[in-house]
């Protein structure tokens, strides 16, 4: 197999004239243990960048560092397309799960109202909030869920609700932590399709921690492979999935199958 050299290729400034996000020399150390070091990543707006890697490699830690939830070294730069200056980017975040039991009396409307209003939601809601929430939910095909309890939603429905919440207001950077379990394949595909459409409509920079390599291969523009505490390889899905370290980590079977799918796709394209 041909060895692709996927060192961080897209370094330097944003010559393309679009807005972009640069993660420079990120490092995270917690209670004396180094979790991440020398993480460099460059993300263009409108790109979906998937972060893959073995369990415990530091993918979720990277997301939390970008969010600013845990302290890190290095810096996060966001360059706006218009004024070319660096601003503090706003972040949308879709967590893997919510910490609540299935009997919790928190409705979807409660969740949005708590995020959007200052008035305590146990006292009253502002009049306009219901309309705003409905509009938000419409972006992810979830209008009908507004009065449901969060605990009564299926895994896929909850993801779409959380996605709608993260997009109100529209952030500069959208961070997605894909659930490891609890969502059926169909729900996951719907989720990816929605994300894909939203990215084009709103020119979002999306960073996605993913465990489903098939969907990554289909929907991601760029893939970053996190291993041994750092990003070992960045590139297009084809480049990264033919990297030897990646193949070793995820097993040869998957890679072969992926290449076969790719070949089929190329063959189909030729036929058309």
């Amino acid at each position, binding site marked *: 197999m041909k060895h692709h050299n996927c060192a961080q290729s897209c370094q330097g400034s944003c010559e393309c004239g679009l807005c972009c996000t640069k993660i420079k020399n990120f490092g995270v150390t917690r209670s004396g243990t180094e979790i991440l070091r020398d993480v460099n990543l460059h993300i263009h707006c409108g790109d979906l960048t998937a972060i893959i890697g073995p369990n415990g490699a530091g993918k979720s830690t990277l997301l939390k560092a970008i969010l600013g939830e845990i302290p890190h070294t290095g810096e996060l730069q966001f360059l706006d397309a218009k004024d070319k200056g660096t601003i503090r980017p706003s972040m949308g975040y879709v967590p893997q799960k919510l910490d609540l039991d299935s009997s919790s*009396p*928190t409705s979807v409307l409660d969740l949005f109202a708590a*995020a959007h209003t*200052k008035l*305590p*939601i*146990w006292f009253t*809601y502002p009049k306009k909030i219901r309309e705003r929430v409905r509009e938000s939910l419409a972006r992810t095909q979830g209008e009908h869920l507004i009065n449901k*309890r969060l605990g009564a939603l299926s895994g896929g429905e909850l993801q779409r609700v959380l996605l709608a*919440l993260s997009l109100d207001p529209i952030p500069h950077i959208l961070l997605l932590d894909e659930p490891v379990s609890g969502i059926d394949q169909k729900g996951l595909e719907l989720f990816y399709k929605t994300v894909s459409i939203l990215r084009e409509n709103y020119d979002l920079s999306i960073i996605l921690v993913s465990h489903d390599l098939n969907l990554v291969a289909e929907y991601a523009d760029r893939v970053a492979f996190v291993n041994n505490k750092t990003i070992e390889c960045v590139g297009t899905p084809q480049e990264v999935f033919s990297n030897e370290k990646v193949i070793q980590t995820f097993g040869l079977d998957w890679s072969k199958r992926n290449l076969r799918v790719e070949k089929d796709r190329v063959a189909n394209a030729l036929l058309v």
Partner: protein
Amino acid sequence: MHFWYSLVDLLLPFGWLQHAFMKNALLGVLLVTPIFGLLGTMIVNNKMAFFSDSLGHSALTGIAIGVIVGIKNPIWSMLFFSVLITIAILIVKEANTASTDTIIGVFSSTAMALGIVILSRNGGFTKYSVYLIGDLLSISSSDLLTLGIVFVVVIVLWAVIFNKLLLASMNPSLARSRGINVRLYEYLFTMIMAVIVTISIQWVGILIISSLLILPAASSRNIARNMRQYHVYSVLIALISGVSGLVLSYFGGTATGATIVLISAVFFAVTFCMKLRLG
């Protein structure tokens, strides 16, 4: 206070409300139980029942410290100690060395043992046993003033922090992404809890204080479908249990706090059956 006394005489001309101590106790119940119903919702949401229990237990050491220092009204030493132990629990919890349950258990039993050891020197523990079951009928006018101030402060604080606290309790990273200082709100919440538990312990009693926090919210949770219902039912159940518990304990000559808890427990049983039937 005169206004309250004449108001009660005018509106509620019942025999049991003739005594001033019953009027005081009624006002106390009307001030304390809504707060318990309100705070209880978040305590049940966050699975902090054990924590509120340990706050109650640690009050014993607070009393003991008050005795050693020589303060007449131990409420200040109790407040001081419960805030101290809350901070200690939060700090140890953040170090992430053991499960929260274990940490709270360690602190709670240590504080209780220390309190008992100090108070039982020379075999004099019995005079403090009033703190174990509480005495709502001993509530005085100056206590009611303190309680009134605490009532207003807690309601205002709760109104300001609730939405952010709810988000933080569901997912800290999500709250963080919306610019919420998760730690600040967690600290505020636990401090409010510490203050309200400590203030009311002499009237409700160490042994049952946490049930009074948990039961109304747990009952409401059985039937509520959103946050507003959750709070409204919880406060209503707390109020009804409080007032009817006070009346029943007067006629039965029983401890007021425990009677209130028993009535809340009945509410829990009823709402639980409603939940089973409604599905």
